């Protein structure tokens, strides 16, 4: 065989192999991706098919665990996603508004930490799971550049990529970014469990039950203390601040009522919170919502519920979520007639 033909065959086989891997990674994610993926798939389907109903919940893992849509008095969908922040919520809100009949009410709830960090999740979950497109990622990068926010540039992913190449690799599903998950799952090992998760999340309209894991607390204290307690001071980054405000503006322009609420922390976590963090967060939310039509701020305090309703000091267990959702249901009923009406979600001894 001539060397030229040899080289061509090497390149052809390599290309075919990569194409097969690409196809596998992008078409069969359910087979091997981690359990966050079927949750995203379930929620993405709700948005794509415009089935969010009248109330949509946007936020992160704490909102995802705390709000049970079935307990609310109106058709609702919990579109909050773990390990995401205001950036991802903006793009979910934008997708929702493409529907002929978008939700009438959006409940917006991010944890303190979500405003002051942006991590690998933008690519590892947002882009890899199909939540963010290449254009979205470039929008985010351009916004960060405009704001002189270098947080994105400082994040290193294992692939060694950065900038536009990283955005391209993750948003096009280049197979190498899936390999660690595929190996972990031994290619098809997560198929059944992922299908179960997807179906469970779809049935629960986006609510995710967080398993009890007492060791998940930040400090190993008897009553688990959540990650929020590790925050030294509240320092929101420009990128998350921008997308928080942009989400409110977007929803406001579309005439969708938005209410920002606090999701309860465990009492042990609140007690361990650094002084000033809670007040600074409340002030920050007030600043972001101030003067925007259709946006109400019910985040007037960082609230705490009894420790028994939490799996790890931050995320509510099923009993906590049920009680909290019932309290929220009463508020939603009020908001239906009076969107700006204040609503107290703090623990009351009668609960």
């Amino acid at each position, binding site marked *: *065989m*001539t*060397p030229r033909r040899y*080289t061509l*065959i090497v390149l052809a*086989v*390599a290309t075919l192999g990569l194409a097969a891997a690409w196809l596998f990674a992008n078409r069969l994610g359910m087979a091997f991706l981690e359990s966050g993926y079927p949750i995203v798939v379930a929620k993405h389907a709700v948005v794509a098919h415009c089935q969010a109903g009248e109330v949509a919940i946007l936020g992160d893992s704490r909102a995802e665990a705390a709000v049970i849509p079935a307990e609310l008095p109106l058709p609702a969908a919990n579109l909050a996603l773990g390990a995401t922040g205001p950036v991802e919520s903006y793009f979910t809100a934008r997708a929702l508004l493409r529907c002929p009949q978008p939700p009438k009410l959006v409940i917006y709830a991010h944890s303190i930490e979500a405003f002051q960090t942006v991590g690998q999740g933008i690519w590892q979950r947002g882009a890899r799971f199909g939540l963010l497109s290449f254009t979205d990622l470039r929008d985010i990068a351009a916004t960060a550049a405009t704001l002189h926010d270098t947080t994105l540039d400082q994040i290193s992913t294992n692939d060694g*990529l950065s900038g536009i190449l990283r955005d391209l690799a993750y948003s096009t599903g280049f197979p*190498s970014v899936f*390999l660690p998950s595929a190996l972990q799952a031994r290619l098809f090992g997560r198929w059944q469990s992922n299908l179960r998760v997807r179906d469970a999340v779809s049935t629960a309209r986006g609510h995710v039950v967080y398993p009890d894991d007492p060791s998940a607390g930040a400090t190993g204290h008897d009553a688990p203390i959540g990650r929020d307690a590790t925050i030294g001071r509240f320092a929101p980054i420009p990128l998350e601040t921008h997308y928080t405000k942009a989400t409110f503006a977007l929803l406001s322009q579309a005439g969708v009522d938005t209410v920002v609420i606090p999701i309860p922390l465990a009492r042990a976590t609140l007690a361990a919170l650094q002084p000033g963090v809670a007040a600074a967060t409340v002030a920050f939310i007030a600043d972001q919502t101030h003067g925007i039509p259709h946006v109400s701020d019910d985040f007037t305090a960082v609230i705490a519920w009894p420790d028994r309703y939490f799996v790890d000091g931050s995320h509510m267990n099923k009993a906590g979520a049920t009680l909290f959702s019932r309290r929220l249901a009463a508020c939603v009923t009020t908001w239906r007639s009076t969107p700006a009406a204040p609503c107290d979600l703090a623990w009351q001894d009668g609960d």
Partner: protein
Amino acid sequence: MLFSSLIFVFGFLPLALAGFFLTARLGTRLAGCWLVGASLVFYGWWSPPAVLLLLASIAFNYACAWAIIALETRPAAQATVTGIGVVCNVAALGYYKYLFSLIAFLHGFYHGLAMIDPIILPLGISFFTFTQIGYLIDCKAGLTRDRDPLNYLLFVTFFPHLIAGPILHNRDIMPQFADRRTYRLDSENLAIGLTFFIIGLLKKTACADPLSAIVQQGYADPAALDAVGAWNLALSYSLQLYFDFSGYSDMAIGLARMMNITFPRNFESPYKATNIIAYWQRWHISLTTFLTSYVYTPVALAVMRYRSRHRLGINRAAQQTPAGFASMFAAPLLITMVLAGIWHGSGLTFLIFGALHGVYLCICHAWRLAHPNPPPATPALRLGCVALTYLSVLLGSIFFRAPSVTAALHVLAGMTGLHGATLSLASAGSQMHLLHMALLYAIVWGMPNSLQIMARTRPVIGPVEPAPAWFPAWSPTWYAAAAIGLAASLAVLGLGGTTEFLYFQF
């Protein structure tokens, strides 16, 4: 830029190759300039300002070389210029690599000493500095023939060796850049180079990188390791280092070959060595050659001349006396190996690593002097020798990797059971990890190396031992192409978890 990054594989390499052969059609000088430009882009990818330091180093050394050659008829002046050149190179290396550590070390004893900010170590400074020191010494010795500035630039900056070696010798490389045939696309060399590159990439991404998490975790808290955990850590690192460097060396050979340049050998199954001398003839061969030529031999010769002048004897009988052995073997070996150790880094761990290998080499030489006619080695004896050599190297590698001497001692304490000796397989990691390790050991000790597999292609400068008869040697066949193509797919898939080459930090 890493050889094992998506940007290199799919962006830089195709562009660099295409540009090289296309510009070569317009002239070899233009192709040379293209290659220098591409190499500078490759070097500056992480830190563009570092290119200025590289260029300054090249300009300084070329000027020194020019002066050394011009002063051929004035040996004293020539020696002075050579000395200045070498000292300046060593000083630059000392400044970037050792100054901060030295001041921090002294600061521990004398707090009045002002601390300085950490100095960012330019990538590959040890490699391009050593390469150029060798050139200056060869200029002084009248061994350099090609003095073309473009060929010199190519010799120093050629990207396949720029950041992590091999340390090239001008006599091996500059004539190849002067040869017009180098600038013609050769489909056979392209096929051979591509094959080498893919084999190296697979070693890096599929063999070395998966071990990095275990090694990082282990060295983050070595005091917590029990016996199984500590052995797992030490063995994992020894394999990670082996496949990382082996993979890098294959990739460097392959990249150079694609551009019709043949590199010297740098890595040849070191864990198959039956003694520590053979180990250093197989591990980082270009560094061993450099240190032998420019440190060990001059020191040993100086000692022998001194002994000869003072009638102390230099023959075998003299070598077997304690004083003779200490001066003619132990001192040059220890000096060379301590330098080899601290060449890798400024910490005390590297010094111990070098000294340890110096002691190993002394023992090995002493044994040879005491047993000049050893009996033929039986398979069992060979196996024992390989095992003993590997264990000695393993011990050194703990100091080589550990962030501090204390951490290294913790690992050693763990390995000897001082941190608990429970036979818990959980400490050894997952079943997948154990299977991976077993497979890697099977490759290390059961397979011929890349050079042997590719022996037919004359992959490196000098002779290559062929693969054993039972192993099919490489030739451009359908099945070889399909296997290498498949290996390429797997290697590229592994780029998602790419980590830096271990030798980049030196």
